[in-house]
């Protein structure tokens, strides 16, 4: 069994108020390492066996059509495990 992972992030030019809220909460807990924080989404998709090229192409298609909104987001598809 393998895991196909799709990570979706807001494009850099799109305002991310959630990330900003996290960034401003960190120092209140004494964490002073963050210059900025961006928040995204991670999808873990289980498949039987080793992912085929065709499966990966289908996941790419799904990432473009459903998992991300290309107007405001970018995505990467990768295989883990």
């Amino acid at each position: 069994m393998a895991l196909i992972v799709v990570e979706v992030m807001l494009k850099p030019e799109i305002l991310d108020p959630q990330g900003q809220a996290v960034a401003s909460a960190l120092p209140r807990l004494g964490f002073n390492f963050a210059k900025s924080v961006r928040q995204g989404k991670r999808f873990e998709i289980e498949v039987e066996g080793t992912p085929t090229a065709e499966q990966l192409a289908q996941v790419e298609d799904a990432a473009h059509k459903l998992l991300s909104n290309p107007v405001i987001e970018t995505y990467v598809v990768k295989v883990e495990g």
Partner: protein
Amino acid sequence: MSFRIGVVTFPGSLDDRDAARAVEIAGATAVPLFHASDDLKEVEAVVLPGGFSYGDYLRCGAIARFAPIMNSIVTAAEHGFPVLGICNGFQVLCESHLLPGALTRNQGLHFLCRDQKLKIENTETMWTNGFTQGQEIVIPLKNGEGSFQCDDETLEMLESEGRVIARYVDFDPNGSRNLIAGISNERGNVVGLMPHPEHAIESLTGPSEDGLIFFKSILHQMVGR
């Protein structure tokens, strides 16, 4: 026969009944449409109401876009069929690519619920022809993800083509680019609006009756009433 306007109910729609009521008070017949059917029931226009379709899972409007009824609406809208998307309906229209841009989390992160002053900027669309240019109206604004975002090129296109139909007045409540509260497609048959005209149709329950003009505009456009 009375002019028929469909109001779509998705799982999680909230304002479908208010929208249907607004349609009736404007003088048309409201026809309930269901997300799981692709049957438009011979309606001549459609309202996509506010709410939280599919629980706003993934992104607001992202899953509603693939409902069977949306296939019919997208195809019809591309041929000039009138569609008004309010709040979640606006989000569905953006996710369907009938309108450009996207609605993202309010800049202040809080859910907003207030009577909002708007300025009508385009009175040429099917849904705004009953207004006068520059008219200021007050209708409720209630959303968590109402910040209109798009790239610079799209913004320039919307502005130069006069496709911003309404703007927030005095201040930007949710971080929308250029104070944009609503936009239209190129032909003016598809309009998306973040604030809620269907909640401002009677002085008893709304801050004004300004919202009714959106619903009367489509009647005027289609049947000259």
